[in-house]
């Protein structure tokens, strides 16, 4: 209660009271430019990135999404797969995990170009004054499983291809239907992915499916916030290895009033963020760690993001009031 606050506390207050949506908007743009155009500056961050920096964006990419090499590696001939070469799978996975651990699902909320793109499509809808859609609780419970199914297929199908059970035209199976493959190269003027491959029946089916998914991506993202993330197998993989992550989303249930403000702003419609007052590690499988919930919680200390245990962004009453006032008076 003294007049002069220590510098550290002042910094903390400044962070906690930041105009969060604006901060995140600019952060995402920067990351988008880096990963979609960084390649032109010869930036190459490897091929084990834990988000959709699509490998098919050949010229602009500043690194490659891990799912691409993963599917290729798993799709090797079984003889090779079960030899020493499998060590590369392990090292690949460890590199991926090392990247992932730093930001946890924060890669999704702040960095992934495909995630950012969905936020932009949402912003467009909002500017047009159209309301977003929600799932019912029943739909949510069913649909939330899909990403795990996709992840399983993304591992099993390549294994099947390597064993000669499926055609090579299906490889890499998830990439063929991944919207990022068509959408991200568009930003560097590359339209080549928008074709149907007529070389075989399987190829026709897979590429046609890919185009349909991409169409669905645009429509879906327009009506639903972060439409695709809900089904994203990368997100499922994240969740499975999120235990040791350094960035964490924490909740102190004793300070929570269950007002539901955090749920109201959550793009992923995660009810637990508001209703669960027991779990301290509150990141769920669908979470993108966008931290919007932290920014819109009015209870000081109820929600926070920590990095290696140190709180870096904490919900505060003053921060809430500042941000909501902004929205109330001249928000979009």
């Amino acid at each position, binding site marked *: 209660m003294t007049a002069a606050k220590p510098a550290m506390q002042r910094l903390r207050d400044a962070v906690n009271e930041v105009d969060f949506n604006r901060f995140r908007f600019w952060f995402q743009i920067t990351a988008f430019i880096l990963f979609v155009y960084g390649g032109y500056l010869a930036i190459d961050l490897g091929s084990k990135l834990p988000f959709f920096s699509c490998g098919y964006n050949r010229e602009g990419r500043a690194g490659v999404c891990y799912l691409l090499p993963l599917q290729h590696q798993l799709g090797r001939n079984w003889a090779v797969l079960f030899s020493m070469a499998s060590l590369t799978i392990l090292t690949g996975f460890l590199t991926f995990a090392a990247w992932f651990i730093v930001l946890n699902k924060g890669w999704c909320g702040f960095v992934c170009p495909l995630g950012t793109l969905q936020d932009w499509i949402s912003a467009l809808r909002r500017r047009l*004054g159209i309301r977003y859609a929600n799932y019912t609780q029943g739909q949510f419970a069913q649909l939330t499983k899909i990403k795990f199914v996709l992840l399983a297929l993304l591992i099993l199908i390549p294994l099947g291809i390597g064993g000669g059970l499926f055609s090579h035209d299906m490889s890499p199976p998830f990439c063929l239907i991944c919207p990022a493959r068509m959408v991200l190269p568009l930003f560097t003027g590359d339209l080549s992915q928008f074709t149907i491959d007529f070389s075989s029946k399987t190829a026709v089916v897979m590429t046609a499916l890919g185009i349909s998914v991409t169409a669905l991506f645009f429509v879906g993202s327009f009506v639903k916030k972060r439409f695709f993330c809900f089904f994203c197998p990368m997100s499922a993989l994240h969740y499975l290895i999120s235990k040791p992550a350094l960035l964490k989303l924490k909740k102190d249930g004793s300070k*929570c009033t269950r*007002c539901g403000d*955090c*749920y109201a702003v959550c793009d992923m419609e995660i*009810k637990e963020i508001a209703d669960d007052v027991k779990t301290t590690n509150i990141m769920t499988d669908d979470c993108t760690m966008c931290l919007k919930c932290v920014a819109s919680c009015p209870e000081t200390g109820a929600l926070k993001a920590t990095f290696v245990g140190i709180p870096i962004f904490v919900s505060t009453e003053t921060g809430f*009031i500042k941000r*909501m006032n902004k929205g109330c008076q001249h928000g979009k």
Partner: protein
Amino acid sequence: MENEIHQVIPINPVPYSRSRQAGEAQTVLDHIVDDFQENPVAMQYFYDLFRQVYCHGDEIPHSGKLVGTTCIQAPEELIYAFGATPVRLCNGSYHYDQRGADFMPAKSCSLVKATLGMLSSENVIPKIGKPDLVVNPSTCDQKKKSSVMIEGMGYSVYDLEFPNVKESEASRVYWRRSVREFANQLRKLTGKRLTRANLKAAMAMTGRAQAAFRTLHNFRRQTPSLILGKDAFLVTNAYFFDDIERWTTAVEKLNAELAERQAAGFRAVQSKAPRVVFTGSPPIFPNLKLPLLIEEAGGVVVADETCSANRMLYDMTAVDEWLLSDMVDSLADKYLKPCTCPIFTRNDDRKRRLLDLVAQFKADGVIYQAFSGCQVYEMEYRSVAEEFNKAGIPMLYIETDYSPDDQGQLSTRIEAFLESLKNRKKRHA
């Protein structure tokens, strides 16, 4: 027949200020103002307001249609957005309580009786005028049953359907629909349209009021206290009928004074004064009986969990996209989800909120008021007491009503309780 009687004994109406009812308010207000020392200067606004409205019977002007609410669950932002003025009808006067006894069984809640008594009088105090619509959320049984009676008195009543189970998703969906229907009703009443701009403006207005309330609330964390609970209750009671902008400005002034007090190291109470969290049936002027007894006896009410103060103003709304639909849904959620009203099936949130208040406000104990006849608060007593027992927090449970008759007996109990809190504090120190 009636006419004949009137002819025989002509009624000479006494001016309101000399009525028994004005006397009741006068006594309480004098007590609040004169029997305590060093009241904040900024409280004068509230003292004057209550004196004008309750003691002199002055009229309170309002703009647009008047919408009476019988509960905090009626979203006032919507009412403001339609250019109407909300007024909370829950009443605290013993005079009206007695009048209302005609409508309800003998053992009913004083608050409900007083509200009915007030609405059935010709000369309603506070003098706000006749509500164009009375919104009665379907909360406790006594309130639910009041609807028809209020209608019988010639008011147009709208039953705002409120769920009894708040955890389920079905209740969220149901309540959001109720709130939309309420907006429809208001549209019919006012002939105006709900727009993004007017709802946003209304939310900015209540948002500012809430921020002012929270600041006041936070000042009460200070030990020893900067302000007494009786004043804080008077402030929130004024919110029932006062012009919201004027109210907010007055609270902001009070906050500025409290900031000065804090900087000057001011103490409104002795440093060993037991700090009390108040919960249960709501104190509404002039029935500030319990808070006053507590503070007369040397305690201080540092926070409360009641629908005439904290529960009414504390919880704030977050909106993601400032579109009409998102705003209305967020508002609906804020009225349902954090609410700690005892009419719900479970009361986990109420218990957690109380524990948090005790911890945050460094309270020494809790005083739980249940109006006799308020079954829901009476029934929740057990579970709340158990929770406090587990946490080692002393609690005093008081069943009472609006009648002043039990004051002597209550003050003995309260004094004994506060004494035990003091001793406990000494032992712990």
